[in-house]
C-alpha cells in the first residue's frame, strides 16, 4: 500500500480508532478506579483492551509493534520494559496515565518479572533500575513533546 495514499490513510485511521476507543474506556475506568489500584500496566490494559485478535492487531499496528507483544502485555505475561519504550509510553498516554502513575504501574510489572526471571533479562533496556527509570522518563518526556498543548 502506497504511503500517503488514500487507502494508506484509511487503514491508519481505522487502526487509530481502536486506540481512541481504548483511551475512552480507560478514561471511564479510571474515573471509577484510580490507577494505583491496578497491579501493573498489563492489568490496566487488560481491562480496557478487548482480547479479540482483530482489535489487538489494529491497536498494535497503530502503535507500530507486534500484536503478540500487546497480547502478552494485556495478559500481564510480558515485562513492559521489553517493549520499545516509545511504544510503551504511548500506551501510557492512551491509558490516560500521568507520568508518575505510568512509572509506578510499569515498575510493578517489571519487579514481578525481575523476581521471576532473576538474572536472565536479555532483551530490552538493560542496566540498573535507575537507568531504566531514566530511560522511561526520557521516553515519556519525548512523547509529551508531541502533545497538542505544546503546539
Amino acid at each position: 500500500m502506497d504511503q500517503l495514499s488514500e487507502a494508506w490513510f484509511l487503514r491508519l485511521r481505522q487502526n487509530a480508532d481502536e486506540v481512541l476507543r481504548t483511551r475512552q474506556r480507560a478514561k471511564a475506568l479510571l474515573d471509577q478506579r484510580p490507577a494505583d489500584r491496578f497491579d501493573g500496566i498489563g492489568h490496566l490494559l487488560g481491562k480496557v483492551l478487548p482480547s479479540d485478535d482483530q482489535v489487538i492487531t489494529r491497536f498494535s499496528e497503530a502503535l507500530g509493534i507486534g500484536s503478540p507483544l500487546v497480547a502478552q502485555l494485556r495478559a500481564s505475561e510480558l515485562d513492559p520494559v521489553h517493549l520499545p519504550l516509545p511504544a510503551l509510553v504511548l500506551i501510557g498516554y492512551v491509558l490516560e496515565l500521568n507520568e508518575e502513575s505510568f512509572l509506578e504501574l510499569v515498575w510493578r510489572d517489571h519487579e514481578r518479572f525481575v523476581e521471576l526471571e532473576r538474572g536472565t533479562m536479555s532483551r530490552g533496556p538493560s542496566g540498573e533500575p535507575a537507568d531504566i527509570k531514566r530511560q522511561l522518563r526520557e521516553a515519556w518526556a519525548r512523547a509529551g513533546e508531541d502533545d497538542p498543548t505544546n503546539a
Partner: protein
Amino acid sequence: LSFDTKLLGNPDGDSSRREPEWSRLFHAMTPRLRYFFARQVSGDELDDLVAGIWQRAVLRIATLTDPDALWSWLVTIGVNLLNDGRRAEMRRDQRLGRPIPLDLAQADEHVAGRIAGDILSSSQYREGAGLIRERVSERDWELLHLWAVDELTHAEIAERMGLASAVASRQQVSRLSRRLRKELASVIKEVA
C-alpha cells in the same frame, strides 16, 4: 480552513460526517505539510516525515482541544521528528545536529509557514512573512526566529531571551502566533 476536531477524535462519531471530514483534513494538510518541510528534507525522507506526522496525529487528535492549533500541532510533531533524527545523528557522529541553514528570505518565509502554513498558499509565504514582520517588535521577531527557524526548545529560547521559564516562552510564542494567524487570515480574506 477549519475542521471539527471533536468529531475527528471521536471513534464512535457519526461516520457519514466523520469520514469526509478526515478525508478533507488529509487532502488539505498533506500538500501544505510537504511544502513546509520541503525546505528541510526531500524525496522519500519527506514522505516518511509527513507519514510520521499523520501516524502520530491520528492517535492523539482526541487531546487537541483548540481546533485553531491544528496546523501548529502538526508542524510541531514534524519538527520533533526531525529533531529525533538530528539527536540520533549527534549520538552517532558526535556532530552538532542543527537545522539546515536557510538564507534570510527563506528563514522569514519559514516563520510565516510555521505560523500559518495551513492558510497561506505557497505563493503567499513571502507576503505573509512581510506582513508578520510589520506587525511584531524586533524582540518578538527574534523570538519567532528562535522558535521557527533555529528550532530551539522553549527552555533554550527562555535562556536566550532572558525569560523566566520554558512555560513563559511557550506562552509568548503561542500568544504571538495565534494573534498573527488571525491577522493574516483577515488580510487574506480581505484580499480575496
